Structures are given as structure tokens and as C-alpha cells.
């Protein structure tokens, strides 16, 4: 049982005084607090005392991120570019929207086909379920998709990730490393292996012969678009050296003559299987 009195008035006086006092709130986006030098909360890549980034681009953080918020690319010790996502994204972040926002002239997207194409999801689900949805069958599923579409559309990869409940980052990793094509193309992709075993077994001569035959260098496509040439060092295991891969099929061990013959033969055949012949790409 209380009768209010002076104590309450004292409190009221303090509160009223505070109403007229300067406030202590930090109005965040307009005024950022200065964090001390030692503060560990910054999202920064840190440098070692020699001025090099301490990050080794081991991809562990990106693989383990539960919301897939990390993309990365970097150079490995031999100077080659390694990347985690679709290679085409990482060539440069030439997103036209970003350019427009920055007020720069926007180059058209090189990979426009990726974003607004449709993928036959029911067929894809059929393929996945045909393998029982097992993660070991991922490469086989990729092969099937590439056979149908000629490359791996990003939409299809997203579907696979959803359906098989495999982390998107791992799908990317498997697609990037497995030698699959990630850009649409009409012709065949001929990948010549340049691993150590194939190089010792004469893969260099193979590559030169093919370049001369087709008239293109690795990374280019012939004038009629039927064959693209690429090199990779993970086409086959050492026993098949020297090896080459056309689309998804690996051929080896080959001599120069046999390689030229195989490429010429495959060049004549249509790039897509009959089932996919009627589909738009």
C-alpha cells in the first residue's frame, strides 16, 4: 500500500531531463562507429607479414557455408586460375546490371542463354529417378544432360541440386571439374588430355595434329561451328594415355592417325542424340 511521493518525482525529473538531453543512439548507416584496430569482427581478408593474403583458396569455407554465400576464385601455385562457381561467372564479374548501376556502358551478357532458357524438368527428374537419386550417379546424370543439350544449362544444374538434395556448391564443383561444357554450343567439344602421362605418351603431337587439321587453337571453335577444341589435364586416367574426349566419350590410347580419324568421324555425326534433336536449346 503506497502513496506516491517524492521518490517518484525524483525519478520523473530524471526522465524528463533525459528527454531534453542529447541522445546516445548511433544513427547507423549515416554514422558508422569507429571500431578499434584489434577488432576481430571485420569481414576482411587478412595479410601475413609478407604482404600476401593468408587465404589459400581451399574452398572449405564455401563448401561448408550453409547459405551458400561465399564464391571465390584465385590462383593456385602454378599460376592457373581456379574457381568455385561457373567459370563464365568468374572470368570477370561483367554483370550488365552492375555496369548500368555504376553508370558505365553495359556490355551485353555473354551467357544470356543461361538465364532464361527452359529445361525439361520432367525428363530430368526421370533421369535422376532412374538412377535412384544416388549421389554417385551425379556424373552419369551430367552426361545425360550434356548429351541432350550439348552442355550443362545452369537451370538443369539447379534442378539437379534441388532434386538430389546435394549442395549447390558441390554440383558446381563436379560440373566444373568433370570436363563438362558449361556454355551452349552446337558442335562437338574435343578435349585433348595434357596430363603427365599423356604428355609422355605423345599427347603433344596429338594436339598439334588436331590443331593443324581443324585449323583452330585450343579454346576456339571451327568456322562451321561443328568442333570446338579444348585442353584439360583430367580427361582420362594414365592407362589410356594419350587420350582425348569428344563430348562425353573418352577415347584412348590413340595414335595420331587414329585420333584424326575419330575426330573426323564424330565431326560428321550430329552433336545431339536423337531424343534431343527436336528440343530447342
Amino acid at each position: 500500500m503506497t502513496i506516491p511521493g517524492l521518490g517518484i518525482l525524483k525519478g520523473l525529473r530524471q526522465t524528463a531531463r533525459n528527454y531534453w538531453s542529447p541522445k546516445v543512439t548511433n544513427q547507423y548507416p549515416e554514422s558508422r562507429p569507429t571500431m578499434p584496430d584489434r577488432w576481430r569482427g571485420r569481414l576482411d581478408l587478412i595479410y601475413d607479414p609478407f604482404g600476401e593474403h593468408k587465404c589459400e583458396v581451399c574452398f572449405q569455407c564455401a563448401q561448408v557455408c550453409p547459405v551458400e554465400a561465399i564464391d571465390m576464385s584465385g590462383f593456385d601455385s602454378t599460376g592457373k586460375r581456379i574457381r568455385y562457381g561457373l567459370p563464365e561467372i568468374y572470368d570477370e564479374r561483367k554483370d550488365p546490371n552492375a555496369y548500368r548501376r555504376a553508370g558505365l556502358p553495359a556490355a551485353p551478357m555473354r551467357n544470356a542463354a543461361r538465364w532464361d532458357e527452359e529445361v525439361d524438368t520432367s525428363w530430368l527428374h526421370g533421369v535422376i529417378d532412374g538412377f535412384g537419386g544416388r549421389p554417385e550417379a551425379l556424373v552419369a546424370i551430367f552426361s545425360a544432360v550434356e548429351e541432350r543439350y550439348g552442355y550443362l544449362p545452369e537451370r538443369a544444374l539447379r534442378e539437379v541440386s534441388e532434386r538430389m538434395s546435394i549442395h549447390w556448391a558441390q554440383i558446381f564443383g563436379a560440373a566444373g571439374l568433370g570436363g563438362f561444357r558449361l556454355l551452349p554450343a552446337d558442335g562437338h567439344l574435343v578435349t585433348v588430355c595434357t596430363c603427365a602421362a599423356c604428355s609422355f605418351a605423345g599427347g603433344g603431337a596429338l594436339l598439334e595434329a588436331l590443331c593443324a587439321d581443324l585449323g583452330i587453337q585450343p579454346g576456339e571453335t571451327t568456322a562451321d561451328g561443328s568442333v570446338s577444341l579444348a585442353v584439360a589435364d583430367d580427361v582420362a586416367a594414365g592407362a589410356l594415355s594419350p587420350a582425348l574426349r569428344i563430348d562425353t566419350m573418352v577415347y584412348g590410347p590413340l595414335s595420331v592417325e587414329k585420333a584424326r580419324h575419330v575426330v573426323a568421324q564424330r565431326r560428321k555425326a550430329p552433336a545431339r542424340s536423337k531424343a534431343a534433336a527436336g528440343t530447342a536449346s
Partner: protein
Amino acid sequence: MTSEVKIPDPLDLDRDEEARLRRVAGMAPERAPAGEYAGFESVGLPERPPQTEREREVYSLEEGEMLVNMGPQHPSTHGVMRLVVKVRGEVVTDVDPVLGYLHRGIEKLCEEATYTTVLTYVDPMDYLSSMHNEHAPAIAFEKLFGVTAPKRAEYIRALVVELNRVFSHSLMMGFLALDMGGITPILYGFINRDEIVDMLSAISGQRMLFNFFRVGGVNFDANDEFFSRLGTWRGHVLKNVEMSERVITDNEVFRSRTIGMGTLSGRDAIALGVSGPNLRASGVPFDIRKAHPYSIYPELEFEVITQPGGDSNARYLQRIAEIKQSINLIDQIVDKMPHGAVQAQVPGIIRPKPGRAYAAVESPRGLYSVYAISDGGPNPYRFRMRDPSFVSLQAIPKLMPGRLIADTMAVMASFDPVMGGVDK
């Protein structure tokens, strides 16, 4: 349209159906006869016979009594704790705190971690007094390993520990008012805390879970940034504390809700194991910094403060007095701080000889102690922490009977438990 899912009402089932479902759910096949284990299902416990005498006492209802659940989701600020309150009308007759909602298995985790990693695991236990959480294991491990921290490190440790005490007590003032409906003092407490935490982030790199202590010293030396922030803060801290005090201490409504509530006599407090400001507010002059001195406290001058009374108001006033005492201690420490190294030379992975060590510190909630057993390997064999909030909660069932429900939270807030420490 999707079809409606009909959830069967248990009252609709016939006996066989109900028995089958109960078996499937792992419950007893039949409901317990009313009256004997009657109180259990209304508070969400499975129907089973009571397993201890105390449980039988709490969960057996007399005529006119009711079990009410003050559930784990409290708007109150201590953390997740469930209180099963047995009430007759508005009057509480018994209280059973149900703990464990914040259990993170820290003691077990520490058995798999190296000694230095243990110091990072113990931070989030009693998250409002992180430095104390780290201090006790650091002392224990130093005893095990046989290393002494350099003098400057000990002074820095005492400094951050006292700063931690200041902001923990400031927050308690706010929580006490908040649990009773006063929405302002908590914000003043947080203003104080924010400044101190900025200071501590200048020295340790983090604002909350500091990870500052190491076996053999501290991680970083105190730099100019830290001391300049400390100086600025010291200039106006007493005014801040007074600002908070002015709103509540003399407030008649506050006084009527805390004076005479939750009175704990000194004898009862000692019997229950309550320690720290709660014990000293009941008149018992026991302060570990004086009774079993550690670190550099023998070199500092301070008296043990007590309050007569032992009620909520006394516990509140005790904490205000301790804030002022801590500020005084901080002044002395800054005055006397020597130069030197801040970390002794210890190997990367510490392998103490087999043995046991115990270390106790005075945390803002009471006696916080660590008992570590080493078997010679890189991980502790056993790492046991004794948290003061856990023990203070035992006092609640002793104090509550005869009071109203509304007082439950107010009295509990005056003990200032932090569930992180209770549940580890």
C-alpha cells in the same frame, strides 16, 4: 482445395485405441489414476511416478492448488528457464525450477579440446561475466602447468575483471526494474555496458565473448586506445550510475515491491550455498577476493561491503555499492600497473603433468570455481565448473512460498541468475 487434416481429440478415442497410441508414443498404456500423479500432465511432464522426495512434494496437489507453468519462453531476461509454480489462488506455495534448456555440453566439449581452446569454450557460459569465466580456468591451468603469469598480465586481468563486474551489476539494476515493469533503467544500464564493452573490444578484439585470457597471461597488451577509452569512461561513469539510481532507488513503488521481499537470512544463505553479492546482502562478509586471495588482490585496498536485511532491496543496494567499489579498484589498478610482458612463455600445446587443480574467483554472481584434472595429455581429463547462479536458484523455492506470483520474477531478478551459467 487441400483436404483438412483432422487431429483426433484424445477424448474421442476408445480405450484400446488410446492404449495403442500411447504405446506407440512410448507412454504408459493407461492414464495414471487421477489424484496420485495428478499434477504432471498439466505442466508438460510425462506421467510417471515421482523419482525423488522433493518431486513428490512439489507435484502432489492439495485441495485448491494448481500447477502453473512459467514457461521457458519468458519475456523476462534471465534466459530460458522453466518455473513450475504451485499456486493456491494468487499465492505461491511451491516452486520447481526446471533447468537445462540452454545446456550446451561445455564440460564435455572441454574434455576434447586443448587447454587453450577450453578458455574459448567457457566464455559463453555466464555470458555477462565472460572475463570471470575465463579467469578461473586460467588460474587453474596455470596451477596445473606450474607457470605464473607476469605481473602486468595479472594487473590487466584484474582490470578487465573489475570492468566486467561493473557492467554486469549495471545490467542487473536494469533487469530488476524491467522485471517489475520499469522500462528505463535497463537502457541506462546498456549505455554503461556499451561504453565498457567498446573499451574491452579495444583491448581484446571482441565486444562480448572476449577470448582474452591465455594460460600464462593475457593475449594482448593494453594499448593507448584502451586507456583513452577508459579515461573517457571514468570521467562520467559515476554520473551514469547515479542517473540510473535516481530513477529507481527512492521510488516508492519500487521500494514497496522490493523491501521485505525474498528475505534470506545469513544462516540460510550459507546453508544453501549462495555466495557473492547475494550473500553479502544478507550480512555475511564473505568475499573470495579477501578470504582466499588470488591474482593481485592482496595488493589492492578495499573493504568487504555488506548490507543488513537480506531482502531484494538489500541485494540491489549491495550491487550499487559494489559498482562503486569496483570503480575504486579500477583506479588503484591503473595507478599501480607495472610494465612488463603480458604472457609467460608456454608451448603451443600445453601438456601439464598429471594432477588436479582448483581455482575460485569472485564473479558478479558469486563464487565461480573450476576444478581441473589433468592426465598428462593435451586435453583436460575432467573440467568441472561450479556456477554461482545454479546454486542461487536453489534459494528460490525456499523464498517463494507465501508470496504472490508477481513477486516470483522480482525476487528471482534480484538474485541475478544468468541461465548460460546455470545450464552450461
